[in-house]
Structure formats: structure tokens, C-alpha cells
């Protein structure tokens, strides 16, 4: 019996007021289980990124709730919400957002440092994760010296170093060529998806659909349908 990782119900989010009011989310309900790699797909402006932000505790919805293992995250105050993101969620941003003035290992160690772990211990632990993504040899280089695919892998290492149970990936292949993008997502599916982790991916890229366990189609802020896929669950 799969455990529910995220349960969202009645999510509404709009921007602006009066005539300028625009709905980004319109009554969205969804569930994502541990062991799942759920894709949110849809055209630009369909509300994918807004939904991802609401699910990950970054953007407060105007109504509705998001429960992570039974906890309504939007009932938490800002400090507890930050702590929730720090401990439970790993982010892979579309543009990576790596720190160019830090070494690759230091970039990966940031979530541990934010958890008040010792600097040296954090960078040492970061090396293990860099090893896991095949970049241990590049640990001392600044991220700018790495290729796009390597930077994406560094971003993934940073996202998982804190061992989060929910991994949020925003357009993970957008800045990569087809083969590299596919290789990255394949790596995530094979190595990071397990029965204690839920991975939510926002993407446009149909070439990586084969790794999804479920695909949620969005348009105009609404969830149009759910497509069960053949990919193996974690």
C-alpha cells in the first residue's frame, strides 16, 4: 500500500485584484505517493510552476491546503515553513542557482550548513554525493568551470545531500541537450527514486516522459487529467 507524500485539495491561487485578477490555480486537487515520480506538464502559463511552488511551501495559496504526511504546511509560520523546506524538500532549479564564488563541493554542502552542521564535515559529506553524481573529481572547481550537464548534476547533489523525502525539479532538462537531459533524469529515476521519496517534476520535455510514474496535465490553472505510466515505481 503506497504512502501518500503530498495531498493537495482545493488549491486556488490568483495574482492581481479586480479586473487584473488572473487565476494561476483553479481548484486543483492532487495526491503524490512516496516511490512516485510525478510529472506536471502543460503549456506555458498553465500554472505548473505556481503549483510546484505551492506544493513545496514557497508560495502561499489563496485557498485550499497542502498536506505533507498529514501536516498542513500552510498552517505553519514562516520560520517553521523554512525549517520544513530545509528538512523535507530538495530543490533542483531550472537555472541551477549555484554560487559561482564557492567550490562545487561547498555548493553541494549548503543545505547541510543551513542545518548547522560543521563546515568541514558538510563538505566531506558533500563529496559522497558528488561521487554519486560522478563529479567527485571536480569538487574543488567553481561551478562555472563545469558544463551545463555537470552543473545540473551538482544541483541534484545539492538537492539530495540533506536526504529530503520530497524532491522538486523545475524543468530539469530545459538548459540541456536531449541526450544529457535524458541521462540526468534517467540517473534520478534509477538512483534517487525509492519507496521513501517522492519526486515531482515540472517539464515540457516529452523525451523524458518514459521515466514518469504518473503525468498530471495542466491547462489554465486546472488539472485536466492524470495519466498513469509504465515507469517502475521506487
Amino acid at each position, binding site marked *: 500500500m503506497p504512502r501518500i507524500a503530498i495531498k493537495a485539495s482545493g488549491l486556488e491561487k490568483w495574482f492581481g485584484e479586480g479586473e487584473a485578477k488572473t487565476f494561476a490555480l483553479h481548484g486543483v486537487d492532487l495526491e503524490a505517493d512516496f516511490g512516485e515520480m510525478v510529472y506536471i506538464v502543460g503549456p506555458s502559463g498553465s500554472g505548473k510552476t505556481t503549483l*510546484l*511552488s505551492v506544493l513545496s511551501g514557497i508560495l502561499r495559496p489563496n485557498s485550499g491546503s497542502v498536506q505533507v504526511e498529514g501536516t498542513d504546511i500552510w498552517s505553519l509560520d514562516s*520560520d517553521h515553513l523554512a*525549517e*520544513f523546506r530545509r528538512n523535507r524538500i530538495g*530543490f533542483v532549479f531550472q*537555472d541551477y*542557482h549555484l554560487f559561482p564564488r564557492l567550490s562545487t563541493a561547498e555548493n553541494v554542502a549548503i543545505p547541510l550548513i*543551513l542545518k548547522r552542521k560543521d*563546515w568541514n564535515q558538510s563538505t566531506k559529506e558533500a563529496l559522497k554525493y558528488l561521487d554519486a553524481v560522478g563529479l567527485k573529481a571536480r569538487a574543488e572547481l567553481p561551478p562555472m568551470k563545469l558544463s551545463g550537464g555537470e552543473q545540473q548534476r551538482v544541483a541534484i547533489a545539492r538537492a539530495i545531500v540533506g536526504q529530503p523525502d520530497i524532491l522538486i525539479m523545475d524543468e530539469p532538462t530545459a538548459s540541456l541537450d536531449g541526450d544529457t537531459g535524458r541521462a540526468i533524469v534517467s540517473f534520478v529515476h534509477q538512483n534517487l527514486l525509492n519507496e521513501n521519496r517522492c519526486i515531482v517534476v515540472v517539464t515540457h520535455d516529452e523525451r523524458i516522459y518514459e521515466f514518469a510514474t504518473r503525468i498530471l496535465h495542466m491547462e489554465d490553472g486546472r488539472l485536466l487529467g492524470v495519466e498513469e505510466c509504465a515507469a517502475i515505481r521506487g
Partner: protein
Amino acid sequence: MRGILKLAYKLLVNDKAKFTALLVGITFAVFLMMFISSMFVGVLNHASATVVNIGASMWVMDPSVQAITSSIGMPAYVLDAVRSIPGVEYAVPLYSGGALVKLPDGTYQGVTVVGLDDTSLLGRPMLIEGKIEDIYAENGFIVVADAEYEKLEKPHVGSEFELNDHRGVIVGVAKVTVSGLFGLPTLYTTYQRAVQYIPNPRFTISYVLVQPKSPSDVAEIKRRVAALGYLAVTKDEFIKKNANFFVFQTGGGTNILIMTLISFIVGLSISGQTFYTFILENLERFGALKAIGTRNSELVSMILFQAGFTALTGYGLGVGFCTLLIYLAKLRLASYAAMITYPSLLVSLAMVAIIAGISSYVGVRRVLQIEPFDIFRG
């Protein structure tokens, strides 16, 4: 928190160009503020050189006197009247005036002549060569070996010169606590010889030096001297009066204030602008940190640490450069009028703290405004 501060430190110092620009701005501002205020304090200190060197407890003068150099002669009865005040232990006259000395090579050099009371020699300097009683010898003068000493061609005991067509003989070489401000060598002699050699108006007593019997007599002495139409002040009050003259009557104080403000504005402009650019360039990354789970208070600590670290480093460098420059200047010119004082250090530190505060306030506002959602939106 140590790890977060180390992260802030690395983000700051690893951006070498910006960090250097920040340091240059603060260091330059501190250097200017320190140097200007040190020079001014030095000038004020040297301006009261005669008061410090004579060392009398109380000074009686014409009420119109604004500074030690602008003495106004007082009639002899003032001395007698002061001596008759019950709280006065003793009172002696002092002459202070200017003269021209003709040197052996035929050139002329302006000097300050201090005439000490013939009986007590109150206010005499400490001799490093010669004997004090030789001041009573015919045409005897004591020369002060300060930074201006060379202008009299370094005379020694037995050297002769002409002062207003009178023969003068050096009978002693002295050292003093503080050199004069105006670049003139100083000669000490007896009061009687000073008024005899130097052309004077009708009244010849520049100041009356007073020793009160006890500190409690000071107020009464002041009151009784005021009743005579003159002014009695303590040594410290006279030093302050001299300082006030330079601060408020010569424009020096206004200039120093303007220069300090300019230094502050220059420092604030360079550092504030650079720090703001630094924050702007890292804004998305601060947003990413926020998304990852950094609390606002932690981000604020990071920015305050960066601003504080830069400010303190720049402050140290600025004070260091200022000290070095003054030290080098004093190697070349012993009486170079610059002094670093604790108030100057504190004022500069406060100014730097304000610069850091304003710079970080702007940065903190921007960082707190950024929404992690903006990072997702790109």
C-alpha cells in the same frame, strides 16, 4: 550559525573585485576622517604649547585675549592687585612676544620670546645643556631645542646672535613638552630683559601666572580678578579657550566638519553602491537560499556580518594607513602637528558603523523583498 557566517564570509571575500572595492571605499573614508581629525587635534595641541610648557595653574589676562598668541598688555597694578587676593599663594608676571633675530650669516629669523619672572623663573623649561642660573648672565637666553631649533642654526651654549640690535648669548638649551604651532623658534629669558630688548606698548605684562593656595580658592580668585576688569582662568580652561578660538574663530572647526562629512559621503557612496551591487548580483542566490530553507533572520545575519566584516577590516586598514603616514611624517618633522586620539578613533568607528548600517539596510531590504517563487519563475 558559524557555518552560515562562514558561507557569508566566503561569498564576500571570494568576490575579490567587489570586496576590494568595498575595502577601498571604507579604508579611504576612514583614512580621510582620521587624518583630518588627527591633524586638527595636533594643531589644537600645539596651539596651546606655551600654556602647557609654562604649566602655571592659573592665568590672568585681558578679557579680550582670544588665544595665547594674541596677548594684550596689562598695567603693573594688576600684578599687585592679584598678589593681594587672599587665596593667592603667589603671582608672577610673564612676557610673551615676538622679535627678529639676526643670525651669524646675516639673515633674520622671527622668534617667540618668553620672559620669565626674574625672581622665581616660574615656568622655566627643562635644560638639557647649561645651567638655569646663567639666565641672569649678561644677555643670557635659553633656546628651545624643538623642531624649529634648526632655524637658528642649531645654537649651543656660547653661541651669539643679535636681537633688535642687542647682543644675545645662548646660556642653555632646553626641551619642552609641546612644540609651538607657528613654526617659530622659542627663546626664554628674564622678564626684565625681555621688556628691555623688545619694543613694547605702555603695558608690558602679557599674563600674570597665579598659584592658588588651594583648589577651593580658584572661584574666589576668578571673581576678584573679574572685579578688576580682567579675566582669570585655569590652565585647562585656557587650553580650551585656545582650542575654541581655532575651532570657532578661524574657520578650522567648520573646515574639519566639512572635510569629515565629505569623507563620510565619499565612503558611503563607494561602499554603499558597491555593497548594493554585490547584493543585487547575488539576489537570486539569496532567493535560492530562502527557497532551500534559510530563515529571514539568517539572511539578515549574513548581510550584517558581511557589512560588519568589511567595515571593521576597512576601519583597521584606514587607521593603520593614517598611523603609518603620521609616523613617517614625524620621522621627517618631529613636531608634525597630528595626533590620533581615542575620540577621533571612536568618531571614525561610529561613522564607519553608520556607513555599514546604511549599506546593509539597503541590502537587507532587497533580500527580504525577494520571494523564492521568483526563483522558480526565473
